[in-house]
């Protein structure tokens, strides 16, 4: 006799949960659907919150600790909501050689946010990527999903000011001392 396991009901009436439900159902509620399930949640909601982690854990019958372990192990998953716009700086080798760290520093000077952070007005999130694979266009950035190549620091800040003004009068970033080491971006 096959016992029908009790299906986990969605945390709210939000229609996006149906997509999550569809993903885990397609994989037969097996535990190996965990990463696929989290991908769908992030695609639908933008990030993974506790409600989502608990729901996926219950739906796949996997301990919450394991779900949390997987969600924090992979860089692609984020547990924090993103800002209105996001800007991803590629920190791959080719972009690094061509000055990606200077761009990160310029953004930090103009907006006071480090990679992985969001501006206080919740307008812009700055993220870093390991490599976008657009090495021919280094240094490359992604502005809300659009890859833009061959950028420099002033052009980058100019593009960002279209979303939100830079803080104070520092709209044009002050020249960065060429001999100074910029911190390399940490993955988020």
């Amino acid at each position: 006799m096959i016992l029908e396991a009790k299906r986990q009901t969605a945390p709210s009436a939000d229609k996006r949960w149906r997509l999550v439900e569809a993903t885990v159902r397609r994989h037969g509620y097996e535990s190996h659907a965990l990463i696929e399930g989290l991908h769908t949640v992030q695609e639908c909601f933008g990030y993974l919150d506790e409600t989502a982690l608990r729901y996926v854990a219950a739906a796949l019958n996997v301990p919450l600790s394991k779900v949390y372990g997987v969600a924090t192990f992979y860089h692609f998953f984020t547990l924090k909501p993103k800002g209105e716009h996001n800007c991803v700086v590629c920190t791959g080798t080719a972009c690094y050689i061509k000055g990606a760290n200077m761009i990160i520093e310029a953004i930090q000077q103009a907006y006071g946010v480090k990679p992985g952070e969001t501006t206080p007005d919740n307008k812009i999130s700055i993220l870093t990527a390991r490599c976008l694979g657009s090495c021919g266009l280094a240094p490359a950035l992604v502005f809300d999903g659009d890859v833009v190549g061959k950028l420099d620091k002033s052009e980058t800040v100019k593009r960002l000011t279209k979303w939100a003004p830079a803080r104070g009068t520092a709209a044009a970033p002050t020249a960065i001392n060429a001999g100074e080491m910029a911190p390399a971006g940490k993955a988020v």
Partner: protein
Amino acid sequence: MTYEELTKIATIEQESSKQYRHSLNVCTAAGCLSSRADQVKDALDKEVARRGLDRHCQVKGVGCMGLCAEGPLVSIENKGVMYQNVTSNDASDIVQALDQDKPVERLRCPTDVPFFQRQEKIVLQNCGKIDPERIEEYIAADGYAALHEVLTTMTPAEVIEQITKSGLRGRGGAGFPTGLKWSTVAKGGGGTGQKYVICNADEGDPGAFMDRSVLESDPHRILEGMAIAAYAVGASQGYIYIRAEYPLAVKRLKGAIRAADRLGLLGNAIFGTPLNFNIDIRLGAGAFVCGEETALIASIEGKRGQPRPRPPFPAESGLWGKPTLINNVETFANIAPILRNGGEWFAAIGTEKSKGTKVFALAGAVKNTGLIEVPMGITLREIIFGIGGGIPDDKKFKAVQTGGPSGGCIPEQFLDMPVDYESLSKVGSIMGSGGMIVMDETSSMVDVARFFMEFCMSESCGKCTPCRAGTAQMHDLLEKTIQRKATARDLTLLETLCDMVKNASLCGLGQTSPNPVLSTLRYFRDEYTTLLQPDDPGHEGNGELVGAGAPAVKEAK
């Protein structure tokens, strides 16, 4: 699907493309798309329609043409003309020039240069020629014919024999003989029972984009290679493990799998033979370590991507404990051509121990950045100064980095060395998956070593101590060196740590993580010693840190 149906699709496709006097191929791979190739394609479409030429002239989105730095690229197939840096405003000039003898000179991209002439294309054969979103075009280019031949005329053992004869080695970096791997999987589990074929498309190496380009430009080639592998080893289920950071490649792969399913080229009873083979896609989630085969398997199983000790190798006990064949994208891309032309044909290309061609992603301080495919055994000088066109802005060549965070920096004295698995490892680097970053005199080697160590430190999965703690300690020592706080003792300590991490780590990530440090210490030791504390006996002069923190920032055009 029968053979007649397959040839019929090919003939119809060839006939319909003959109807057109001109074919305008617009590169729609990710590189050119980010330079707005989609707008160029729309503009050309509109222009052709406006002039009422749509019956003579087709505008087609194709895969990567290689010269990513000059994108968007448009090629006029029958005339052998290529245009570079095309914008949507150029559409009218381009279409107007079609029926004239003279192409648009100001947009012309010279194709008689070494960048195009010196390449030898097997893997990239269809890239830039066929529309990756239409299975018919792949079939018209002899696609799936090798699969049919294999299924109807060869035994699995004969397939493996051809692969062994070809001398093909794994293109993921380590260079394990592919034929040997296949025969191990074929014998695994007593030769019967469930087996899996996995395509490793988790291209996490920063500075490498070969796999992405192949998947975006010619996805069916990978599916055909995997299906042939499934027949040879006796598998019925395949997975493609691909990075979630490559949305376009994922989209095209999904489309390709659907199209192949629909035509019966995947699924049950392929070509009416007993072979059943399905392919599913699994998305990676941004963990470099998942390129390691046992970590990749853990990730497909829905776990954290942590490697486990080998043996048992995945060929004996892999996904869910079953015999599993894992090959890289480029390895699978070589399979169909090998079976179409025979193992001997492939073995005639390349060097004694490294056969065939290799795709490289050429980037960094080099004029022609982009995707290239060269025969094994070509020299680094030919690649960088011939195909690559040399170093821009009259700067001096300093080093070339191959193999990403697992490889090393190769200095000028080895430029005339042939590119093959053995030569590269002899000088302290590795073939790697194909990233090749050129550095000029403004790059500081200590800074480069620190960059890669920072990468390995944050990508270490944390399972074994040598890698988890060792990479962090090495990174701190490099940071200390750059801040001019290190002494000669620290340098010795760094070398000791390199040795320990290299020999005691569990998987390839840890074992190879000291390579960038070791190779720069070997060839550019003076850059380290000039940074040591002035009062230290190991210090040499008060030289400035060469270019550290001030890499050549190329101003946006």
